[in-house]
């Protein structure tokens, strides 16, 4: 007899609630015991007088494997033999009263042997082991262009894109049952959580039930953190046999989850007198802390974006990923390229200031490709220089830039503010000074060299007997839900109330990639449209219910080559340009953001009002985190979308590519000196204003 066993559907169930609001009977609390040293060996964790209901959980209590594996990188759930950074989890303190746990944690006696290690880049003791990834790509011969150049410029930029949010603290509530364990947590990467917990507890993956609660913003950055916290609380629940709630403290979140990666980018440019950049080198150093699970993605994205839309005939891009004994840093993979775009736009501004050419003219001049002598050789059939410019759909940038320039009256303001700030020493003392800055950038989604990219994305839509429709996908984003429903309602001519979202489908296992990877939304939105169009064609010819499945092959027909940068690196690319006007108070050295103008080309905008609010929110969030000493907020924000009938593209993080650069360029115009560090401080503004520029 044939087996009729149905395949087990491994899907996270969505709960519209915060896990911190959930409590169950007999629940224990847990706090993480952290390493007091950055390098060495932990020998023992003891408490002289631990009360009966309290216990310490360490790696010895793990029944499965004490490992979290993210792509090619593995690290322990609880370090014991060797610690890699200060504050690394080495155990849990569990008990029924969270306040008592706090007191007991202070009385712990942790015995360890400390090892000496240098983190200083200039220290001769720093070994090659600390550079864990290194990549270099070159087109043409930049070194020769520097010898021949009329003008040579060099500048180093440091950026930490730091979005500090006050949302729910990360953690997990693990409830053990007879043959299963249920986890309540914000699960953006449910598949990874399930695999990690299953390996740690030495149980089948099917016995781990994930109830995904409302996702906090922090879940986007340290993608592996949820897996680690789920594994830790599950180990405690398995050991004690009781529900265990583990919630990080705000300090722990800031030190170990939301701590941003520092990107240091050094540019050197060789220029003609006209402003044409003939050679450009970029050396990017990324300090990722103790572990760098997404190092390949970071390196590849930086290489693709390091030259931005500029067609520099000779360039070299060199990227280093450093491992240090700091906690592993958070990086939102979706915006890891924003750092190099940011540095590039600042460097372009600096070039325009130094050679006295308008910033937009310099940009337009260098967007154009120049035929080189060696290219002519290539035309003759000799392939001397296989490295090309990645296809970033550059045509879009011109209309975007023109639109934002005209709306902001950029040219007049730039000239006026530049003249005033240049001459401020002669006729203005202690007056507020103004500046205006421009930046352009792109958001790519579905990076074809990413290890986290799926080959294909599928979606099912069902029209039931009563003509109600189920979209078999779910997102916590109300805007995206609204877009899907509006789109389906419009195509099928049914009320939005008849459309429901449900992740259950026959498509099997949950996706291998994190929910927040940016290609998901644009592809799923396209798939909703395709499925609904197919249903609309069939609904009056075939009996209901109708279930339609559609798939997008992301890598099919892709000619993208990471080695030579040929082809299109992203599934879709949205372009954005921003202009920001600022005022610097020369008494307090505080900054005011007067106006922000943004123009975006992201294909068809399905819900303009939602898109506009989402962009405005994103701008406010970035501005609020642009100064460590001040919460900036824009007095007015104007957003325009270029009308288009092309497929919708992701815009969720495109402001990260333009707002920090436009802001610092505006400050640079106001101060008439380069600003090279992001985020800003009032002290930085003071020191820039009061020190003489070294040329």
């Amino acid at each position, binding site marked *: 007899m044939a087996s009729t066993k149905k395949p087990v559907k491994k899907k996270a169930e969505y709960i519209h609630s*915060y896990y911190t609001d959930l409590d169950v009977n007999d629940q224990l609390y847990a706090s993480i015991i952290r390493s007091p040293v950055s390098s060495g060996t932990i020998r023992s964790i003891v408490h002289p007088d631990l009360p009966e209901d309290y216990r310490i959980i360490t790696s010895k209590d793990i029944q499965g494997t004490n490992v979290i594996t993210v792509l090619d990188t593995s690290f322990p759930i609880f370090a014991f033999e060797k610690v890699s950074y200060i504050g690394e989890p080495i155990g849990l303190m569990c008990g029924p009263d969270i306040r008592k746990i706090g007191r007991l944690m202070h009385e712990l006696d942790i015995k360890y042997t400390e090892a000496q290690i240098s983190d200083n880049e200039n220290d001769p003791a720093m070994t090659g082991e600390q550079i864990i990834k290194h990549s270099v790509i070159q087109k043409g011969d930049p070194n020769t262009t520097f010898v021949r150049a009329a003008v040579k410029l060099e500048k180093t930029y440091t950026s930490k894109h730091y979005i500090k949010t*006050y949302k729910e603290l990360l953690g997990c509530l693990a409830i053990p049952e007879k043959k299963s364990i249920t986890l309540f947590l914000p699960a953006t990467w449910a598949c990874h959580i399930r695999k990690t917990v299953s390996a740690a507890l030495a149980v089948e993956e099917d016995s781990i039930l994930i109830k995904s609660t409302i996702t906090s913003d922090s879940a986007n950055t340290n993608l592996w953190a949820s897996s680690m916290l789920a594994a830790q609380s599950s180990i405690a629940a398995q050991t004690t046999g009781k529900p265990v709630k583990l919630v990080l403290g705000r300090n722990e979140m800031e030190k170990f989850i939301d701590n941003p990666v520092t990107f240091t980018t050094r540019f050197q440019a060789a220029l003609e007198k006209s402003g044409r950049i003939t050679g450009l080198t970029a050396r990017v150093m990324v300090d990722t802390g103790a572990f760098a699970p997404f190092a390949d993605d970071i390196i590849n994205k930086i290489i693709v974006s390091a030259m931005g839309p500029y067609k520099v005939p000779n360039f070299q891009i060199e990227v280093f990923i450093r491992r240090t004994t700091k906690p592993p840093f958070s990086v939102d993979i979706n915006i890891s390229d924003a750092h190099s775009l940011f540095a590039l736009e600042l460097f372009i501004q600096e070039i325009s200031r130094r050679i006295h050419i308008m910033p937009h003219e310099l940009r337009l001049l260098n967007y154009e490709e120049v035929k080189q002598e060696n290219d002519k050789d290539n035309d003759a059939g000799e392939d001397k220089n296989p490295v090309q410019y990645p296809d970033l759909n550059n045509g879009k940038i011109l209309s975007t830039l023109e639109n934002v320039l005209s709306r902001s009256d950029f040219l007049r303001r730039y000239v006026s503010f530049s003249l005033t700030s240049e001459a401020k020493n002669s006729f203005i003392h202690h007056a507020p000074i103004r500046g205006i800055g421009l930046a352009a950038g792109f958001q790519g989604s579905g990076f074809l060299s990413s290890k986290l990219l799926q080959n294909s994305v599928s979606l099912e839509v069902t029209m039931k007997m009563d003509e109600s429709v189920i979209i078999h996908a779910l997102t916590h984003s109300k805007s995206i839900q609204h877009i899907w429903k509006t789109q389906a309602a419009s195509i099928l001519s049914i009320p939005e109330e008849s459309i429901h979202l449900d992740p259950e489908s026959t498509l099997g296992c949950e996706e291998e990639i994190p929910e927040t990877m940016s290609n998901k939304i644009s592809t799923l939105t396209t798939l909703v449209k395709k499925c609904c169009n197919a249903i609309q064609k069939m609904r009056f010819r075939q009996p209901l219910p109708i279930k339609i499945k559609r798939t997008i092959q992301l890598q099919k027909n892709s000619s993208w080559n990471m080695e030579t940068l040929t082809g299109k690196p992203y599934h879709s690319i949205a372009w954005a340009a921003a202009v920001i006007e600022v005022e610097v108070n020369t008494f307090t050295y505080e900054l005011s953001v007067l106006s922000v103008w943004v123009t975006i080309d992201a294909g068809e905008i399905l819900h303009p009002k939602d898109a506009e609010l989402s962009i*405005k*929110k994103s701008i*406010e969030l970035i501005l609020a985190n642009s100064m460590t000493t001040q*919460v900036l907020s824009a007095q007015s924000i104007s957003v325009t979308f270029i009308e288009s009938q092309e497929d919708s593209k992701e815009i969720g993080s495109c402001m990260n590519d333009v707002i920090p650069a436009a802001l610092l360029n505006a400050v640079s115009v106001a101060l008439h000196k380069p600003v090279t560090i992001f985020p800003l401080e009032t002290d930085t503004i003071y020191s820039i204003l009061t020190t003489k520029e070294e040329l």
Partner: protein
Amino acid sequence: MKISCSINNVETLIEAEAEERLLTTLRRLGYISVKNGCMQGKCGSCTILLDDLPVPSCLLYTGSIQNNAIVTLEYFAKTPDYEDISKAFTQTGIKLCGFCNAGKYFSAYDIIKKNDRPLKEEIEHRVSHLLCKCVDNESLVAAILLASKIRFKRLGGIAHGKR
């Protein structure tokens, strides 16, 4: 220690340690609309009405409460004032993240309760401390202005606060 107060219009006797923060006490008692945001009194997620004034409960010691009236969003959500603000938020297209609701609603309430026709600059100043940026300030200010009009109309155009 035992503390006597009114929570959501019900006389209550709370048992708590004197140095416990009011946020922790309220959450322990099941008032989960009070969220743990920054524990520094600057994000607004733990806002409550204490004697009809919005205050961050993370900064208050429970022991400092004595015979005060506490209102959380659970109760406030049943009032016409909440309806006014909610209507204005919806009409302005604002979708709150859910975590900062207490801060946004109670700040809006405090502004429109004290002044029937608040000035834009006044609102900008009063909401500038709300660090959750799930809504841009311009839209939030517009929504609060609209809420003040809705409330004014509901009350029959009778001025209750300063102009």
